[in-house]
């Protein structure tokens, strides 16, 4: 444990504001959003939930998913989420708020799909708890105050024709609203042909090496 971490712990014990550490993020989202511990991040699609979770999960963080019975776990494993450190609470009724509060105490990242509208007062109370517990909350749906919101603007599946082929890759545009005014867009493979999600880069066209001039050898 280094000195900075110790200072942070002291600050947390004394209730002073701490400069929050960032959470590892998937390369496809790097630069688009920088999740910090204690933050609330909104998304609007299952594949974005998985992409956002895969960063911290691959780094060894415990994750929990509340109230999403339809989440594709096979896709989660493909996205790089460590299933042995994943807790699912698929069926939550009225008790979802208590469940989220209990998991926020124990896990590093909690995903929730709120079944009901959340009052700003309740959200603020949970945010305070997130800060003190160093937990990230990912909200799949509406939330009063998000530190950033990711949404899928368009997606274009490739690999399927008319009666032939199969789904292979998807080229999607993700929009991130990190501030009131700042909106960033990025085109990503979600996933690419090799099942890895990454930003779409226009590969520089490699020039063929110039051939050596033909010489007479005789």
């Amino acid at each position, binding site marked *: 444990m280094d000195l900075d971490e110790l200072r942070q712990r002291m600050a947390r014990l004394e209730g002073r504001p701490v400069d929050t550490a960032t959470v590892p993020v998937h390369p496809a989202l790097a630069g688009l959003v920088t999740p910090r511990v204690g933050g609330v991040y909104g998304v*609007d699609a*299952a594949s974005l939930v998985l992409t956002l979770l895969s960063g911290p999960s691959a780094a060894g963080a415990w994750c929990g998913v509340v109230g999403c019975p339809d989440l594709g776990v096979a896709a989660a494993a493909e996205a790089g989420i460590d299933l042995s450190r994943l807790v699912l*609470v698929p069926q939550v009724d009225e008790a979802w708020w208590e469940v989220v509060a209990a998991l926020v105490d124990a896990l590093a990242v909690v995903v929730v799909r709120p079944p009901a509208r959340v009052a700003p007062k309740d959200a603020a109370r949970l945010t305070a708890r997130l800060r003190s517990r160093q937990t990230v909350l990912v909200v799949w749906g509406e939330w009063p105050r998000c530190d950033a919101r990711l949404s899928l603007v368009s997606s274009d599946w490739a690999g399927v024709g008319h009666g032939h*082929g*199969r*789904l292979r890759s998807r080229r999607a545009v993700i929009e991130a609203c990190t501030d*009131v005014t700042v909106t960033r867009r990025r085109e990503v493979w979600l996933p690419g042909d090799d099942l890895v999600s990454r930003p779409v880069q226009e590969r520089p066209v490699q020039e063929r090496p110039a051939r050596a001039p033909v010489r007479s050898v005789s």
Partner: protein
Amino acid sequence: MSAPTLFDPAQEPEPDGVRLRTMVLWCPDWPVVAAQVPVTTPAAVLAGGEVLACSPAARVEGVRRGMRRRDAQARCPELELLDHRPDVEARLFDDVLAAVEDLTPGVAPIRPGLCALRVPPRYFGGERETAAVLAERVVELGVWDVRAGVADGVFAAEQAARRALTQDVLIVPPGGSASFLADLPVEVVDDAALTGLLRRLGLRTLGAFASLAPADVVTRFGDHGSVLHRLARGEDPQPVSRRQAPPELGVGRSFEPPLETAEAVVFSMRTAVEELVAQLAGHGLVGTAVRIEVDVDGAVASARTWRHPSWFDAAGLLDRLRWQLAGRTADLQKASDDGSHDGTDRPHGGIDGVRLVPEETSAVGEHAVSLFGQGPDAQVDRGVARVQGLLGHEAAQAVVEQGGRGPGQRVHTAPWGERVDVARPAERPWPGQVPAPAPATVFASPAAAVVVGAEGQPVRVDARGAMSAEPMQFRSGPEADWQPVAAWAGPWPVDEHWWDEAAARRIARFQVVGSTAAPGCWSSRATTGGPRPAMTDPFPAECHVLVARSQISRPERDTQRGWRPR
């Protein structure tokens, strides 16, 4: 070979109490007896392609131990061949051991079918009487062929038992082991290498082997040969080691008067559970699976085995007890809602007893807490336990990837805190599996999607996998809007588990890409139900509907932070 001297009880010298004699009980052909085939059926148990044991009926036909399968079947074509199942044999022989142990303490199992014990000198009236009482008890268990031998040592007693008649005893007089063994062939020591060598040296009986000088035997045959030499001379170096009765580790409490509420039961069981954990720790064990039995009105009302991925502490066990009681209360509640209880009656009988029996234990050293790296996991367990306390044990789930064809089948979920046993390993090949990428949304209950062709007729797949029309439009639910099909692939017919009526399913999968609206989904149309569909039935279709979204109508945003409307 002179007949071994049968012991006359009248000449039995007064036992001096210094050296107890050894009795060996032998149930011949135990592997066949354990397989519980009828006596008249010729049967043989095979191990490694050779006959390990055969029934008397098979022996009459000429089947012998050590014979190859083909030879045995040639001798007796109607021979019933059985697999060698050592664990089953050992388990069934445990009943015999327990029956013998009831009568006389200190039974040493040698192998399934064979056990040794010290003969009580006078309790049953003598050695012959003891053997008769034990044989009677074993025959009561249904093992009619049991033979006994009594001698000074285990080896001589075993040889005597092998030469006794059915339900009879052969008694070698005290000090007579050497002379009894002298006439036996050397093969009885059951060491093929040594007996072959002894035969070639011209030593055909144990007596001839025993007459060698011990020092010569050690130099020529080594320590192992020396041990066998001592056996041949009737000096048994191996004392009868008694079976250690397994310690009773379960705890139980009975409540008088019966307790009504779960909390009261859990509170009353606290000390008992702590006692159980301490008792296990005293044996150097921790419980990994514990069976909890709850008695209501003197009968077991609910019994369940709880497993833990690591091990149970007292708090964990109390949680399990609470969940079990809560589940029971919920069942009763449901039963009373259904009207099986009249309102005046007590809702349910009081709980008058709880027992906790550790079913699986492992050494505490295997689960020692390491110095670093255990903290967060314990914290996670506590947090999830709180969720389970709120919603019930099954609410929080752990997931494991397993083998399967559809995306939903590739996941195995189990309640958090239970060991996850995967039935279908994921690393095996799964031909027909939906290829990656897997859908991010897998509907727990499939939505009924409808796919139609150009004229609006539903697209069907016939028994040969041919489609009735090309899909042009689809909608993901009865209320959803129709949208055009941008691209499609399939059908991939799947005909699974046709040998199992309950699990059989015949479906045809499609991947359909729409052009607007709803997010990617996995939906199914007309899944199978009822009797297994015949091969000639058309395939119900399962659509993998994936939607490319070009234009999205933005949902209304919370204006508090001034989301910029687009």
